[in-house]
């Protein structure tokens, strides 16, 4: 594999996952394998003893250079259900604020002999950077890097869609809101296209679309009436308050009026369309409470499936690492 191939880092020579950095370049069969593996872990959460011994004796470090509650917690639960030892390091408030470089932080943590790093960082490419430099047997899982990728979130969204809609090939999926700044949207688009969705639509004003968005394999809409027409799945994105300060939007009110998902706008979609959101939601900014809490909302299911998907990714990457070690 060439160094320019996004997979030269994350796959073993036989095509198994050994890091999970991005959806880009992964095959449909590998994404399906992740979903199938996750299915097998769903029931673990319903049991009285909620653990399986797959990662017993392994040490996993949650390296969060950016604050996060939900993602970090679900990774922690996933790791513990696999019987791994988990250490949470909230690095945004420790080492780097003292001027230590990412590389120095990494080397120090490696000296503590960990088997896996789950990384969230504000810079795009941070997980690649770490995966390129860790000692060979350590797996790196991207828990969100800058605006680039959030592959486990995308996979839990795919699992949610598959569980409620079955096959992808006849589905039209609309992603609404701040796509420009969203690592989630980028990973979702890649995953949906790889899994064969019929159409992926982006709905946003031009200020919230990334450059050359049309080249991402999507159709672009500027209004909800035409964009949501006959869609099967609506994915709403979180709107950050600072978008108003940088003149990308006039006000939350205008955004809500034009792009906020209300019962009225949801009526443009198919009658059985489902609603998703990576959370945390801003009620009354991008989504109406009635919709968020309504029967078509899968927002809480997403969180539940998130644990199973992360269990799948952690166990697959660890076994890929084991497989790629010379005996």
């Amino acid at each position, binding site marked *: 594999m060439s*160094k*320019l*191939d*996004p997979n*030269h880092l994350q796959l073993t020579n036989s095509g198994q996952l050994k890091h999970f950095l991005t959806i*880009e370049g992964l095959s449909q069969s590998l994404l399906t394998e992740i979903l199938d593996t996750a299915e097998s872990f769903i029931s673990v959460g319903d049991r009285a003893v909620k653990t399986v011994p797959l990662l017993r004796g392994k040490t996993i470090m949650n390296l969060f250079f950016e604050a996060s509650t939900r993602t970090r917690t679900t990774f922690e639960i996933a790791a513990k259900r696999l019987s791994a030892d988990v250490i949470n390091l909230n690095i945004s408030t420790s080492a780097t604020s003292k001027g230590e*470089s*990412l*590389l120095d932080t990494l080397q120090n943590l490696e000296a503590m002999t960990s088997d896996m790093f789950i990384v969230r*960082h504000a*810079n*795009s*490419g*941070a997980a*690649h*950077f770490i995966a390129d430099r860790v000692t060979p047997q350590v797996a790196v899982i991207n828990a969100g*890097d*800058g*605006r*680039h*990728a959030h592959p486990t979130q995308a996979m839990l969204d795919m699992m949610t869609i598959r569980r409620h809609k079955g096959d992808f090939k006849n589905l039209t999926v609309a992603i609404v809101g701040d796509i420009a700044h969203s*690592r989630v949207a*980028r990973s979702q688009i890649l995953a949906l296209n790889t899994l064969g969705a019929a159409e992926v639509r982006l709905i946003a004003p031009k200020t919230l679309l*990334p*450059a*050359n*968005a049309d*080249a*991402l394999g999507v159709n672009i809409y500027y209004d909800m009436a035409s964009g949501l027409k006959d869609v099967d799945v609506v994915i709403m994105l979180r709107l950050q308050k600072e978008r108003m300060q940088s003149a990308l939007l006039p006000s939350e009110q205008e955004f809500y009026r034009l792009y906020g998902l209300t019962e009225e706008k949801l009526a443009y979609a198919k009658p059985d369309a489902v609603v998703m959101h990576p959370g945390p939601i801003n009620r009354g900014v991008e989504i109406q409470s009635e919709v968020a809490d309504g029967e078509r909302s899968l927002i809480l299911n997403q969180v539940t499936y998130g644990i199973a998907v992360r269990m799948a990714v952690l166990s697959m990457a660890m076994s890929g690492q084991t497989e790629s070690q010379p005996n």
Partner: protein
Amino acid sequence: MTEKSISIVNGHVIDPQHNIDQTTDIHISGNTISSAANNNAEKIDARDLIITPGFIDLSVNLCEPGLTHKGSIASETTAARAGGFTALACTPSTRPVIDSSAVVRLIKDKGEEANFPHVYPLGAMTKQLGGEQLSELHALNESGCIAVSNGRNPYKNNRVLLHALEYAATFNIQVFFHPQDIELAENGCAHEGIMSTNLGLPGIPASAETVALSRDLLLVEQTGVRAHFGQISCAKSVELIADAQARGLSVTADVAISNLIFTDTDLAGYNSDFHVQPPLRSEADRQALIAGIKSGVISAICSNHQPHEPAAKQAPFAATEAGISTLETLLPCGLTLVNKGELSLVEFIRCLTSGPAQVLGLDKQGQLGDNALANITLFNPTEGWVYNSETSNSMGHNSPFFGRELIGKVRHCLIDGVG
């Protein structure tokens, strides 16, 4: 006392200014080129070599004073010479910046000490490059600044810029522009396009360059200041400069070698060696820059050499420092363009010799006519070699070419007849 004579024989001479592209001999008497051969001259056999005027670079970061963990005047001028350069203009972004005569003298003295006498500092247009208060432009010019520039640092407002240009025009001091609108480029580290979108890197749109360039051209026209545009990077900029030249404005432009050989697709995999300013843009932009050279709109290729210590590049892409160490690889890079048929060898050599000499007004350099300074580069255009960090002369640890075989090697580089 008789001066030392040298004859370079059997080589293929390319002297674009005099339309020479043939096998002929070059004679040197003392520090100048002479039309007459001296029978007692030392002979350099240049069989298989190409002989050109010494290369002239319009933008080198020498890093001294103040940034000597990245490079020094001694190390980077040695790298320049190894790359075939006999003269260079150095950027004002040292610490302290080149905003006082003392810094100018220090740099020129250190250049002399390093046996590289043709170092031409670019003075800082504003104090500390802060964009607010004018530097003593007349004093800087008198002490040896060949031109002045604010680099990519913004002016506080357009009024400051206008005044700076008027003041420079008063004393006929040339101004180098590196157009980039700071707000449009804010936090960007890659060309804004499909690659920046895919990689999630904050983009620098082409309009960051063209908006600033358009404004600068209007103010150049208004003030009549002598102007040069350094390191333009996009198709629309070539168009804007061509339009200005067509309506009679005597502005010149150069392009950095990296923008001619790489594009934003090289950023795949987040290789921080390709984090550079101006950013590597699209293939269409690259082709427009090549066309701009062929049409004469762009008259020089610069190295935009920017050496860094290893730590400057060891971080996620956006957190790394911009720049590539390019002086020693510029010739083989340019030869790849020649070998692909994108530029002729004469067009490429013109952009390293007579083109930049005319930008800087260096009458006796960039050409091999009678009485020109004996600044001469001899290179083998087919010799392969491997560039690596251990043997590079530059202190820069930031080259995408380390460990790769390059074709085209400088064999001799004479400065003022000494080599």
